[in-house]
């Protein structure tokens, strides 16, 4: 990016100046600033409804005193406004500190000085807008022409590049040069007064190469076929069923049914049902679950780019790393940011993430998955007398306090006597966090291991995440239905 110079205002002299300003008044502070630009293309029925570009700056300054945080957000990147916001944050932290009842410290960390960069094979800056439009148009055309039943198509293309800087009172100074791309494709089909829709997306960190994989090239064809197939799907019958979840759904299940309740901020605030469960067996001994947002995993899936949920460092300057959540059925670790790890006297594990430099870091997941075991999928289905094969998800959520979670599947097939039968739509599944991991009766092999990417919301912030696993079978799940 040509405007990198604006972040160069954070030179050593200015940082020394801030350190002096903070003096002994604060125990910890950090500053994040981002300069970003990007493109959005939104097409409906092969026409552009939005073709846009942006240039944005974001900056957030945090100060901490003995358990109280102050945060100040600004948009003008110059030394005067940064200095005055810095002082405001300190004032806010002091005020907060004067009222709180839970005092704690942030454990000192070694400073980190590093520069990270996403290496795109086809950098976004080399791709002109016409080329991006051509690609979106071709997906729109494929979807629209795939059948007379297709009534409406929509394709959204989003990309962005950013320069990011992180500095803190430990003396860390981290620079990043990031690039992402995401394509969403939606198709509505209509037959005999019934409308059905399907949505698929592909996204990652990198450049235009993200759209070059076979999966990306076939996305619109797949979405169209799915929405047409759903026209003949039946509404499910509610009740208790054994289900086989595909990797995408298994990943969502892990994310919702376990991941959120492992976020240490919810544990400390007594909002998580997994409070005081470290070291306890909360799943069957076969189950191993991790969160690993570190870079370099794209190639293990044969992809020429980095996974959508990966990152170099979190938004508190802690490198991303693999965290074991469940090992052989036993809860090993919570996910931490700087604050929660300090309070529990553990090293942080790199899960303090923010949706932008204008938002405060929260404890968030990255790439959460269940590790594969040994079941072959065909054998797994044959072994299932009666049940439902659930593929892909529409959305999911959880209440970490009561432990009740719910998610909705995109496709569900009845299984009768080990054979896949008719398709059902809008199957909703529900269960309890502490029960479901003890009802997993089979875990698929490495061959079936896969993942999906998406956006996860918490406290008004959205971050990029991935989750996945092999096929898994879960007994005795509550299935919602209209009949």
């Amino acid at each position, binding site marked *: 990016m040509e405007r990198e110079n604006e972040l160069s205002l954070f030179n050593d002299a200015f940082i020394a100046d801030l350190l002096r300003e903070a003096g002994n008044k604060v125990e910890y502070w950090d500053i994040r600033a981002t300069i970003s630009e990007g493109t959005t293309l939104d097409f409906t029925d092969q026409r552009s409804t939005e073709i*846009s570009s942006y*240039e944005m700056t974001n900056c957030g300054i945090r100060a901490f005193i003995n358990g109280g945080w102050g945060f100040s957000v600004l948009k003008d990147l110059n030394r005067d406004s940064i200095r005055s916001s810095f002082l405001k944050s300190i004032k806010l932290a002091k005020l907060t500190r004067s009222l709180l009842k839970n005092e704690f410290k942030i454990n000192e960390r070694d400073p980190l000085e590093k520069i990270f960069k996403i290496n795109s094979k086809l950098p976004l800056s080399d791709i002109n807008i016409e080329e991006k439009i051509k690609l979106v148009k071709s997906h729109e055309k494929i979807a629209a022409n795939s059948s007379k039943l297709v009534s409406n198509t929509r394709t959204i293309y989003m990309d962005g590049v950013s320069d990011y800087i992180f500095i803190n009172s430990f003396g860390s100074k981290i620079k990043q040069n990031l690039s992402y791309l995401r394509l969403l494709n939606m198709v509505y089909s209509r037959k005999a007064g019934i409308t*059905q829709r399907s949505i698929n997306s592909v996204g990652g960190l990198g450049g235009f190469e993200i759209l070059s994989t076979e999966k990306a090239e076939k996305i619109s064809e797949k979405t169209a076929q799915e929405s047409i197939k759903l026209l003949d799907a039946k509404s499910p019958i509610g009740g208790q069923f054994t289900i086989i979840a595909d990797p995408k759904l298994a990943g969502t299940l892990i994310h919702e049914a376990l991941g959120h309740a492992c976020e240490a901020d919810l544990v400390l605030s007594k909002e998580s049902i997994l409070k005081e469960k470290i070291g306890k067996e909360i799943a069957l001994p076969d189950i191993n679950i991790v969160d690993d947002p570190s870079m370099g995993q794209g190639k293990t899936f044969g992809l020429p780019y980095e996974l959508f949920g990966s990152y170099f460092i979190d938004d508190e300057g802690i490198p991303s790393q693999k965290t074991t959540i469940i090992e052989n059925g036993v809860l090993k670790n919570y996910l931490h940011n700087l604050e929660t790890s300090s309070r529990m006297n553990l090293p942080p594990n790199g899960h303090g993430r923010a949706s932008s430099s204008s938002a405060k870091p929260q404890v968030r997941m990255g790439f959460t998955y269940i590790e594969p075991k040994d079941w072959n999928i065909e054998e797994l289905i044959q072994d299932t007398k009666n049940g439902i094969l659930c593929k892909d998800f529409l959305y999911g959520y959880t209440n970490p306090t009561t432990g009740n979670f719910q998610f909705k599947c995109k496709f569900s097939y009845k299984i009768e006597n080990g054979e896949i039968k008719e398709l059902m739509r809008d199957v909703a599944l529900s269960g309890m966090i502490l029960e479901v991991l003890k009802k997993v009766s089979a875990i698929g092999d490495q061959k079936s291991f896969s993942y999906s990417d998406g956006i996860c919301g918490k406290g008004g912030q959205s971050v990029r995440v991935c989750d996945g696993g092999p096929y898994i079978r879960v007994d005795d799940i509550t299935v919602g239905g209209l009949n």
Partner: protein
Amino acid sequence: MNEDIDIFELAKFAIKIAEKNYSNFKCAEVFIGKSEYLNIEVEENSVKYSEIGRNHGISIRIYRSNGSIGFAFTNILKRNVVEKIVKNAIKMMHVGTPDPDFKNLPENSKPYSMVEGLYDKSIKNLSIEDAIEHVKDLIKTCSEDEQAISQSGDFTANSNLSYIFNSNGIEVSGEETYFNISSNMIVKDTINGEVSNGYESQMRRKLADIDGTRTAEEALKNAKRNLHRKKIKTKKMQVVLSPKGTINLILNPIASAINAESHQYKRSFLVGKRGKKIGSDLINIDDDALISGRIGSNIFDGEGFPCRNKKIIEHGQFLQSGLLHNSYTAGKEGVESTGNASRRSFSSIPSIGISNLILHPGTIQKEELIQNVKEGILLNSTADSPNIATGDFSGLISQGNLIQNGEIKHALNETMFGINLLDLFENITSISKEYKIYGPYSAPYVKIDNVQIIGAQS
């Protein structure tokens, strides 16, 4: 923001370069947004975090005579960046596809209705110390209760300024405030140790209307009602929706289903239902932008077009004129915009959104409505939403209680329910006199017959 920048001058400058730079120019619009906010957060029932921030930005939307659109935005309010952004928008327009359905941006021809109470001056003098006083109300309620063990919550004060200019002569600006307080209360049963939570929030345009104590008390009540959770058996039952349930299952889905865009693209289960009965006679719904002081009220919409009151459903009939439009969908259908262009910020192209969506209250008292239920569910909330294309709903009851012989009993665990919304509308048998206002919604209690409940008890 840099106060030396004259916003009007900047906007006119942007429009001028847009007009000058392209020969097939049809129209252009500049939107400038400026906001300031203050936020205090409570965690573990203690003040934990305070934040102040500012945001501002400019966007330009430009159309060629063949209807192709270009859009660009920035939050860097400098003349040279704005100039670049306008040029980018023109470039975007140049590469867009023709759209014969695009008619025009709004013209400056309609009078604006006065709407009072959108801006509360007291925000100007609101200090962080004052804001903390509101949060103290939350904390006190939790500390004083024996079963309450923790609370998360927050207080936010926001002020927004928006300026909209277009090349058809629209030139409007407005200032608005909103304040929000919320509480998520955690309670623990003193005998069996069961933990549950309850949530409540309040959003108002006037600071004096924010009541932290009541918000926390309501959250506490919800949390306690959510204790003693049990699984129940699968069965068809009556369901009483609390105001939040009414928003989840009636108002929110209707808000999406009456959006003209979802009709034009045939994405709504109400496609083809205009002029027809879609449910019980008891259903009367308006979308009213002109109520003094309400969150969804406004003088003009996201394109600067005058807002008004619209009848949507009358005695169960979805009116012919019951769709919500912005200028694009209105032009496509050959009608006038309803003033429902909505934009979250300067960085988004106007979509379509409700003003204040009001389900008219009925005549029966809520106690009586519950007393009449022999066996049923009081549904306080669900985090699920129906499939708007089909109207099918199946989801989890996040918070609900069993009703037996007119009395509210234990809470529910792992209980789901399913119904098509048209059946739900048909099966409404009573609506309460009492109603609650949450954000842009007015929601009474609603009783529905014959709902499929799926329990996890075998």
